């Protein structure tokens, strides 16, 4: 490890090592988060990043945190992804008297120093409200979930979306029975299945943009581009482009790993500097439509 | 102890191969079963051992009907069997193969030192003391493995010992040890059921001889009342004038020259020539290095010092050399494939039409070979080769190699498990091929065969060529002397 690292938190040093414990890097959102944290660290000049990937294994995450602690990092940022909680990892960090900063995923149980992330239910609501306004005639709306069933981030988004539409009698909601696994290929297959049973959809909500991009392909293949509009979550570049181009991809809610990652690193450095910080910070998730997509695409 | 079989029938996939077999024997008998390849000997034995269920019929032990549903049932009644195909667990030690299921224990755990001791005692008691009980079974030569199989059957002092072609892979003193063992068991009142194609030993050992043909018992006789020639006639259904065709070789050009071939620990400084038109025997005791030498010449084993060995089997075949190995299950056949595919293995590429296998030609060639070598049963071309009887499997191996039209043919124990009539056919065929210019190296542990079927004999002794003898006029003792001293 670096010279100058070591010692507990607080007491402003001139150089820090920050560990990043990713639960699962193999998704554009999570790898974007990891990259954003590293990029922000570079701008600081005195922060070194050590990043780990648990490959979707909770015990490995705990192990990685332990490895980081044994390298004597000054703080640990946990990008928990679909993981609901990691009490053991949090306990280990606490026992080592280091700050634990959570990004994106707020753990249900366990003690942490600070959390920075989106309000997933709000993003879903936002999409629902947009569609209500746009589809004045109502109709049948499909929902594509990422899965697995214990993923509460996706659940929050869908619940938010449903809470808006189910109170409106003009809409009927159909949930695809299988999961899209958060990828474009999964979104495509699930959409194909959905279309076979419900050819009369007017809109589709996906728990993230990657699945929506796949669903958009399936809709195009079925020749229903004019009939079905799509609403996603995340603000993935390809989705922004599709929205900007005026396709049937009409809305998404920004859940930018860049913004969150940057804030998280800043927050970590603040904590290490001894500052008192806000415990939970919700990063706003602006609605992105054709009108404002250009602004986010280039940022 | 008495054993009585009544009307035993057996069908595989609707095809009946045993058509009502009756047998009777009692403790102290050595009951020999003889018959052509595919006559149903092994099938009968498997039924008697509980390894195969019969379709109908009855087995009575001491007058009581015995329901042998599994090998376990047979064991319980004191019936132990050595099957035709070797079936040791190659990864495990000799001890473990011997004592499987009967380990000496201490505090519930296997007591390994005691187990090894027990295994050694057992091996010594049955006359196979030369085998190291700690050795891995797969590392032993085929002959030694066979001895372990026999010893294994004797672990629990059986009342009935069934031996399916036990002598096929044995020679010399090993063979003597086996005979001594059979006589000793007989003396102790054990019923020994003995299957063999070696009629001389059958006449020597048996108290009763059962001749099977096409799934039926056609005669039951005694050694004193019959002869080798009569048995052959009964089995084959035809008279055989002579076993070995008369040879008048006119050796032509040199087809294979091996010079100073050496592989550490296996053979040293071996040099010989094979000429077109001659059949050369290679005799030696088990473990004298013959098979390793042949494998090396053929390019199947890693190269050695000296010259004359091929780089790879491809290389050898390209130069017109073919080799029938001694272990048909391990390296001669693909057991799960059909007979046709097995026979076609060597010629798929050379006879292909464009990128495709010439299926019509394959069918024709296979059918020709099946007829020429009388491979049984009828319609076997599309049967998995594993369903053939042992001797017929051996013929399939031979067929595969004859199809490449070789200039040099190396035969390692080619008549192992082959019945007398077919042997005669094979000798005649090899003779005919040799007359047409083929050079043959015949490796055999059968002294009569090695002298009868060849023109000259090379004798190997502990990895060295100990001498060369003309076959004609040489006695078995003269060959043995060179092989042993």
């Amino acid at each position, binding site marked *: 490890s670096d010279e100058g690292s070591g010692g507990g938190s607080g007491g402003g040093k001139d150089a820090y090592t920050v560990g990043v414990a990713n639960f699962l890097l193999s998704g554009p959102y999570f*790898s974007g988060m990891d990259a954003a944290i590293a990029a922000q660290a570079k701008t600081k000049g005195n922060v070194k990043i050590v990043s780990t990937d648990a490959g979707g294994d909770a015990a490995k995450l705990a192990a990685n945190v332990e490895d980081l602690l044994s390298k004597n990092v000054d703080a640990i940022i946990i990008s928990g992804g679909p993981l609901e909680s990691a009490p053991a990892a949090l306990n280990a960090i606490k026992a080592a008297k280091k700050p634990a900063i959570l990004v994106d995923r707020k753990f249900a149980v366990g003690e942490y120093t600070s959390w920075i992330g989106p309000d997933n239910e709000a993003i879903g609501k936002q999409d629902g409200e947009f569609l209500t306004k746009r589809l004045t005639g109502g109709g049948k709306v499909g929902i594509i979930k990422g899965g697995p069933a214990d993923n509460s981030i996706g659940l929050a988004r869908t619940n938010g979306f449903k809470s808006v539409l189910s109170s409106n009698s003009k809409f009927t909601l159909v949930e695809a029975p299988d999961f899209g696994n958060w990828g474009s290929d999964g979104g495509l297959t699930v959409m194909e299945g959905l279309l076979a049973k419900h050819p009369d959809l007017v809109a589709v909500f996906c728990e993230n943009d990657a699945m929506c991009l796949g669903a958009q392909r399936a809709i195009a293949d079925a020749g229903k581009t004019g009939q079905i509009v799509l609403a996603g979550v995340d603000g993935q570049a390809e989705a922004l482009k599709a929205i900007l181009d005026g396709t049937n991809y009409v809305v998404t809610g920004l859940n930018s790993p860049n913004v969150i990652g940057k804030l998280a690193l800043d927050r970590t450095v603040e904590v290490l500097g001894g500052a008192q910080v806000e415990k939970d910070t919700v990063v706003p998730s602006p609605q992105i439509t054709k009108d404002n997509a250009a602004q986010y695409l280039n940022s | 102890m008495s054993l009585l079989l009544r009307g035993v029938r057996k069908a595989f996939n609707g095809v009946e191969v045993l058509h009502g077999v009756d047998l009777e024997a009692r403790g102290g008998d050595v009951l020999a079963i003889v018959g052509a390849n595919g006559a149903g000997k092994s099938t009968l034995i498997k039924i008697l051992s509980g390894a195969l269920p019969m379709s109908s019929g009855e087995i009575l032990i001491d007058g009581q009907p015995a329901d042998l549903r599994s090998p376990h049932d047979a064991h319980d009644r004191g019936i132990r069997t050595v099957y035709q195909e070797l079936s040791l667990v190659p990864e495990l030690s000799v001890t473990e193969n011997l004592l499987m299921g009967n380990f000496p224990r201490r505090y519930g755990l296997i007591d390994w030192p005691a187990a090894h001791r027990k295994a050694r005692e057992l091996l010594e008691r049955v006359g196979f003391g030369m085998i190291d009980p700690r050795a891995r079974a797969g590392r032993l030569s085929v002959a030694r493995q066979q001895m372990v199989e026999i010893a294994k059957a004797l672990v629990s002092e059986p009342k009935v010992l069934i031996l399916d072609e036990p002598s096929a892979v044995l020679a010399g003193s090993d063979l003597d040890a086996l005979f001594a063992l059979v006589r000793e068991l007989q003396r102790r009142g054990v019923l020994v059921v003995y299957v063999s194609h070696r009629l001389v030993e059958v006449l020597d050992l048996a108290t009763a001889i059962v001749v099977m043909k096409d799934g039926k018992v056609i005669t039951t006789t005694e050694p004193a009342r019959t002869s080798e020639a009569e048995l052959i006639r009964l089995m084959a259904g035809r008279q055989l004038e002579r076993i070995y065709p008369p040879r008048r070789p006119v050796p032509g050009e040199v087809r294979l020259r091996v010079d100073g071939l050496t592989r550490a620990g296996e053979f040293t400084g071996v040099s010989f020539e094979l000429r077109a038109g001659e059949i050369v025997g290679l005799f030696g005791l088990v473990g004298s290095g013959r098979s390793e030498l042949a494998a090396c010449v053929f390019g199947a084993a890693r190269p050695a010092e000296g010259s004359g060995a091929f780089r790879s089997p491809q290389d050898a075949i390209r130069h017109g050399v073919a080799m029938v190995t001694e272990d048909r299950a391990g390296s001669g056949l693909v057991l799960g494939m059909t007979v046709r595919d097995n026979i076609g293995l060597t010629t798929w590429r050379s006879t292909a039409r464009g990128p495709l296998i010439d299926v019509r030609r394959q069918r024709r060639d296979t059918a020709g070979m099946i007829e020429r070598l009388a491979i049984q049963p009828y319609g076997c071309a599309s049967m998995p080769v594993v369903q053939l009887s042992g001797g017929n499997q051996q013929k399939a191996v031979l067929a595969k190699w004859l199809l490449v039209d070789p200039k040099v043919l190396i035969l390692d124990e080619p008549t192992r498990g082959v019945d007398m009539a077919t042997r005669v056919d094979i000798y005649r065929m090899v003779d005919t091929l040799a007359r047409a210019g083929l050079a043959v190296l015949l490796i055999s542990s059968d002294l009569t065969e090695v002298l009868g079927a060849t023109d000259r004999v090379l004798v190997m002794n502990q990895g060295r060529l100990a001498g060369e003898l003309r076959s004609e006029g040489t006695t078995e003792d003269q060959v043995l002397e060179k092989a042993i001293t």
Partner: protein
Amino acid sequence: MTTLAVKVRGRDVTVEIAFTLLIVALVTVAATTSESFLTQTNLTNLLKQMVTTGLLAFGMLVVILTGGIDLSVGSVVAFAGIVTAGLVADLPIPVAMVVGIASGIAFGALNGVLVARFELAPFVVTLAALTTIRGLAFVYSEVPISPTDPGFLWLGSAMAGPIPLITIIMLAVFGVGGVFLARTPAGRSIIAIGGNAETVRLAGINVRRHIVLAYTISGFCAGLAGVILTSRVGIAQPSVGIAFELDAIAACVIGGASLAGGRGSAKGAFGGVLVLVLINNLLNLYGVQSFWQQVLKGLIIIAVILVQRTRRPRSVKGRA
């Protein structure tokens, strides 16, 4: 259950018949209980959805026949896809696709060399390849790549009449591959190697070269599947293809292939693919909830292999 042994020209076709009946039964149940099943859309979906598993299953079959296994196919799908999508910016589309497929071939050949030349266990070699190639896909691009050229989507969406072009490609692979296995010296040799490699070696056939060939074919199929998948979805993700190998292997085994090698057929593997795709499709059409889908899928697979299992002849000889 009694087994009726049926023979046609000396071959035992009992299993094939049972298997065909099973597929017919699945289809009949589907057609009579779900009105969506026989719709044009659903049938087209079925045809498309069998492409990836189908391609991977054929390649896997060839490897399984040698007695090996290829766990790396899912990662190769990802790598070939992302490389193709990445190259489209600089190269003509067909060239980019060829490079993608070539990468699959290269990985396959590498697997083959490690297995054949260095005699390493196929499971571990291809497991290591799974990890390494997945890593390389991410190294190539951490983020998804979506080529803007609309021509990129052509391959994945073109139709030849009512049948998707990619389905025809897959069927062609099975057709050519079936002939390869049944009628060419190389194909038969591959099967024989799985039965007894030593016998094949002594028959003068270069065993190593054929093993390398088998893995190369699997790599080719995975590369092709990756390119097709990317063109179909329009976006290449480095994370695609996780656990794809399991379905491919399941298809082969459901279709009667033995993981010990030496037994299996293109027809069978294709049937296995059909069964898997039909099960998925049915569960979706019935709207079975995702985790019950998982429960049922497993149970149905067990039922399927129970029905179609061969009555393997028990024999003392049988080592095969």
